[in-house]
């Protein structure tokens, strides 16, 4: 790998010196930061980062390499990766390849050597901001600034269409009730959790309510995904039609879409929540869960207007982290109970969904299903 000088430019003109890693080429997108200390592979392969450039605040990234088991989707959908120091050598018995090779294999450019703390502080001030980076061999500050400014951001952009499965597929052996899972950018660990309780059919994001009901589901799951919930009105409409017909559980974008289906507003947070350490209070039990988070938009709890109650709240900033519909069997959370990466404190939510669907025991040996190797209680 030849090291070449590179430059990261934010839309406000702030520049950061670094050097190229990962794939060749220019990266442009909305720059966000993630504060996890471990779990870079899960973050990079999380489809919810579609359209975004991920800055890791932890300086050393790539230390333990990458492996097939920790892929959260079929490929990374992020636009680029910004790190302070990429490991030259990986070390782990689980490692199968290095992060740099993975980025190159999937065409994801990266930039290393960046003062990621300064960048994070800048994002905190500006909010999630468009940016662009590339090698100084083929780009200069002006062209990168132009590229950054040309970025539309994620507001109002349908990024779900870029990441959802084109075709429905099943994880099922016919032994369990069926859950139809809307794929807005679903993470594999969520699928593993669902599949440990149910037969699962994953459907494209634009599947209509009628199509879904025609599959005879015992429940519907609304997945995580990238971007602005307001940009996927078709999903909102489908969910609105499913409410009351079948029990529903949503995570992250799925939670926001459930909120919108209930008529609530969603708002864009200044720089979102991306990390593995956010305290969330379960309002029913009072218990605090340390949660995995990855979102830029949130449900405006005040606009739930009597149709749903808030069940979880973020203790850092009061953001609505969960809701329960009052007149239909449906609930959702903003944070990620499947973790991957992050703490397992909220994994009980899958059990609650199972209980809602009358399933009391997870599978003991889910033959032919993806292995649930993490966090399944």
């Amino acid at each position, binding site marked *: 790998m030849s090291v070449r000088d590179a430059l990261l430019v934010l839309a406000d003109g702030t520049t*950061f010196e670094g050097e190229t890693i990962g794939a060749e080429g220019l990266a442009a997108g909305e720059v966000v930061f993630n504060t996890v200390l471990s779990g870079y592979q899960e973050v990079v392969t999380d489809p919810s980062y579609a359209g975004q450039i991920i800055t890791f605040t*932890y300086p050393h990234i790539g230390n333990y390499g990458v492996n097939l088991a920790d892929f959260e989707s079929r490929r990374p959908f992020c636009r680029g990766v910004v790190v302070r120091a990429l490991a030259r050598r990986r070390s782990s018995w689980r490692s199968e390849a290095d992060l740099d090779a993975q980025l190159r294999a999937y065409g994801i450019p990266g930039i290393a050597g960046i003062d990621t703390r300064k960048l*994070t502080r800048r994002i905190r001030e500006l909010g999630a901001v468009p940016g662009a980076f590339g090698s100084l061999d083929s780009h200069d500050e002006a062209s990168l600034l132009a590229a950054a400014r040309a970025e539309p951001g994620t507001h109002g952009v349908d990024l779900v269409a870029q990441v959802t499965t084109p075709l429905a597929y099943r994880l099922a052996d016919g032994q369990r009730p069926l859950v139809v899972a809307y794929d807005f950018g679903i993470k594999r660990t969520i699928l593993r959790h669902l599949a440990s309780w149910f037969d699962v059919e994953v459907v494209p994001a634009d599947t209509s309510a009628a199509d879904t009901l025609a599959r005879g589901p015992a429940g519907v799951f609304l997945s995580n995904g990238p971007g602005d919930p307001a940009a996927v009105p078709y999903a909102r409409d489908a969910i609105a039609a499913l409410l009351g017909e079948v029990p529903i559980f949503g995570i992250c974008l799925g939670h926001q879409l459930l909120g919108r289906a209930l008529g609530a507003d969603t708002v864009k947070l200044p720089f979102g929540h991306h990390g593995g350490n956010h305290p969330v209070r379960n309002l029913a039990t009072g218990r605090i869960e340390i949660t995995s988070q990855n979102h830029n938009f949130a449900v405006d709890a005040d606009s739930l207007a009597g149709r749903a109650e808030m069940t979880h709240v973020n203790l850092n900033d009061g953001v609505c982290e969960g809701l329960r519909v009052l007149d239909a069997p449906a609930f959702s959370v903003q944070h990620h109970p499947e973790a991957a990466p992050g703490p397992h404190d909220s994994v009980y939510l899958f059990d609650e969904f199972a209980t809602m669907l009358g399933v009391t025991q997870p599978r003991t040996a889910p033959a032919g299903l993806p292995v649930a190797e993490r966090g399944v209680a």
Partner: protein
Amino acid sequence: MPKRTDIESILLIGAGPIVIGQACEFDYSGTQACKVLGEEGYRVILANSNPATIMTDPEFADATYIEPLDVDILCRIIERERPDAVLPTLGGQTALNLAMELVERGAVGVPGTPELIGANAEAIRTAEDRGLFKIAMQGIGLSVPESGVAHSMAEAEVVAAQIGLPLVIRPAFILGGKGTGIASTPEEFTRLAAHGIAASPVKEILIERSIAGWKEYELEVMRDTADNCVIICSIENLDPMGVHTGDSITVAPAQTLSDVEYQLMRDAAFACIRRVGVETGGSNVQFAINPANGDMVIIEMNPRVSRSSALASKATGFPIAKIAAKLAVGYTLDEIPNDITRATPASFEPAIDYVVTKVPRWAFEKFPDSPGVLGTSMQSVGEAMAIGRTFPESIQKAMRSLELGRYGLGCDPAERVLEDLDDEELLRRAAIGTPDRPFQLEAALRRGISVEVLAERTKVDPWFLDQILSIVEEREVLAVTGFAGMDRRAWRRAKRLGYSDAQLGWLWDVPEADVRAARHHAGVRVTFKTVDTCAAEFDAQTPYHYSSYEDEDEVTYSGREKVLILGSGPNRIGQGIEFDYCCVHASFALAEAGYETVMLNCNPETVSTDYDTSDRLYFEPLTLEDALNVIEAEQLSGTLKGVIVSLGGQTPLKLAGLLPEELILGTSAESIDLAEDRERWNALCARLEIPQPAGGTATTLEQARVIVEKIGYPVLMRPSYVLGGRAMEIVYDDQSLCGAMEQLARFGSLGREGGLSAERPVLVDRFLEDATEVDVDAIRDQAGEVIIGGVMEHVEEAGVHSGDSACAIPPYSLSPETLAVIEAHTRAIATELAVVGLINVQYAVKANQVFVIEANPRASRTVPFVAKATGVPLVKVAARVMVGATLEELRQEGLLCAPSPGGYVAVKEAVLPFNRFPDADSVLGPEMRSTGEVMGIDSTFGLAFAKSQLAAGDRLPDAGCVFMSLANRDKTVGIEAARRFVQAGFTIAATAGTADALDLAGIAVAIRVAKVGEGTGMDAVELIESDRVQLVVNSPRGRGARADGAHIRAAAAAQGVPCLTTAAAGLAAASGILDRAAHEVTVRTLQEYHQGIDHDRPLLPLHE
């Protein structure tokens, strides 16, 4: 849940003296706890025997008992104070063990007695009893290394046969892994098992499968009453399993765990704390992972705040001890705000965006008989922590923070010592954990030995090795580029890998100042980042900084006048918590006077590196480069009034002459040098007509011989510019003189650091035998007024290092005339040196003549003791004096108060680490070897001395047999001691010569013993081993009795019999035993003592 209102008063048990395995971290945690509980409105009762702590400052608790940490004494305190609760989880293993003893006595934890808060007895038992812990962990599905428990050698053999070698042997209920070891052969097993059973207070050992070579991790967990659990920090050891975690280089956060593995470990840690049943507070859980397949086993958990908690607090900015104290009184994590962001709650897990490296500091040079190999028993005496944006930056800073003359990880003159080794020898050494391992790893990589080979041989993770390799590779680039070829990018790359200007200067043979200037010219300057618990996600309100070479600097402007205090760096023998106490007091005093205080230090155990202590904290090495960086940053961001260099021991003092003169507050660098430069000092004493022992300075053996010819033997050899009597020796003949000079110039630890030179000669002085040593701490202000803070009379004679000697305030045998002379000399010296601030002067008094030994115009080790004994806050006063106040002004203001009216005696006793170094001789000498100190305070010298012995861990017997073996010159004092022992009802055993002398004096000797290994009948060692001796007094001064004495002292140590190595200490002990027989043991608060003790008034219980 808000705080509990059903309790009003809480007894906090401290950790006692600084010992290996239990250092200032428990002053840090205890101080935080005292503050928090006081702020919450509880009556805080504190018991701690260590006067050098901040927590025992009278203002930190409502009732401060500087009393021995002994269960009988604690029962007296509980009787007197009737606290509602006892909090034992912030005073280390000492407090936890005492809590268990109190529970067994029925003195706490049962109706009608105080409640145990923080951890209950059942939880402590489950965590501490290795057998119970193993069953508990297996019960929740966690793996533990196969193991068995044994209470006898027979049981031990059975367990060993079941599991098979290699085995780890761990005694139960032991702090710092004392007595723990790995046995690879049956012989080693027998030895270690026997040792372990003897060392354990419950005579129990755990024998387990050795997993040496696995990767070691720690998680710091907190839990509240609502069962919310969080991980504050993960720590990965660079050294593999097999080296005690306190002796390992540790890195935070964990570097080589994937999230899948990390989260499983997190789940396991929570399961562990819940199962053990620690209801509130912090715990530390240790894991090992097999690097080949990820198998995870749980090693142990500490159900209390620990050394690692202090490290985790400093590493993350999350104040574990403070939060633990709040949780103990009923708060939940979400009810407590995060101090650093102030906007978010404490119920979260810190995200960090830097790398923290902790490196231990050892004192093997003080124990030349010890093999110096690291193992499962902790041997380090201190540690430094460094923060960098990356691991290379962090470890390089850590290495220069250690202050062992290293400029970083290699690339310095000291690296030469490894050059002569062949590759195989280097690898062989690197495979063994020693203090040199990091340098050996670097040297091996620099030779081109591959990461694979090195990882295989040392079991250090390849990721760490590759990071070190990146440092090594950059060095090659730098060497090729050369000083002249450096451009901005090259400077930046080098600095980002942690290279110090000193390393670069050495590499290129360019003065460090030129390196700095050229680098600045190229535009590469330090940037300070902030430790904020959240990786910049939220705005930080607390200026806790570390340096890096990045794009953005986060130091903010302040309009207030600022004072920078240079701390004392890692603890070492001779420079420990006493100096941190001084720095902290200066910070408090200057803050109260309206200054903005700025602290620079790199010791994670201390109160000074608490982000709460000063207005700004820089966690940085104490080198010239790093100090200049902070000075420049503070000058750029406001007005820096000056720098305090005289409170942190030798560390900042060494920098004094290199910093801008106008910034040095208090005594000038010139005066400091005047006191240290032998020629000038002699001239000064002559001018003042103050007698000194005859002597001179030498850099060669010839010069030393010339001096000795003039003054005669014995002589005291003293290297200059060292602290703690480093390499000091009393020499009685030519042969020893040769040996001593060889050591100093070449082979000894100082020799390796540069040896002797005209700037660093050795002082050769006539040694005054049988003189009484006296220490004086005084303060002089710029107007010329001098106050005497305290005059301490040493118990041991001159020749025993003052730091290892017991001493008393007020002096117990000096005449008023002698005291007047000492005070007058002190005033004259302080005036002549133009001291502004503290000065310590040491005297030897022989036949009523007062000789001055040395003067140090800086804070001394004894200042905290003097302040505790007299009630005068000497350092606070001195700090104000240094920034310009006069003593008269401070008297008006009330800060300088009158000393306590007295009516009591305070005795400071040293605590020595010989139990950690079984191969070292315990005899005291001119080289200091104590790690800590305790204070005994009572109405008479004897009672106070007896308390000081108990506090130091030696309970003086009430009856039985005293074995005495004394050097001839000690026999006069020894006879008086023996007389008092007999008076107290003891029988006397003695070696032939001593017995003859006692006979002559008319003292009955019940048992006479032969010299060791000689003649017929029982020898001294056999007598001691026969369990018939309750106290040993053995004074082996000079030559002759030395070898015999070493056997006697080793036998006493092995049998756990208190052993006094000077006749003077024997006499003090005899007085104490006599006094104790005549008085009931009483406990009083320091606050009461400071009011003055009227012995006619009965001591009433404090509760109604």
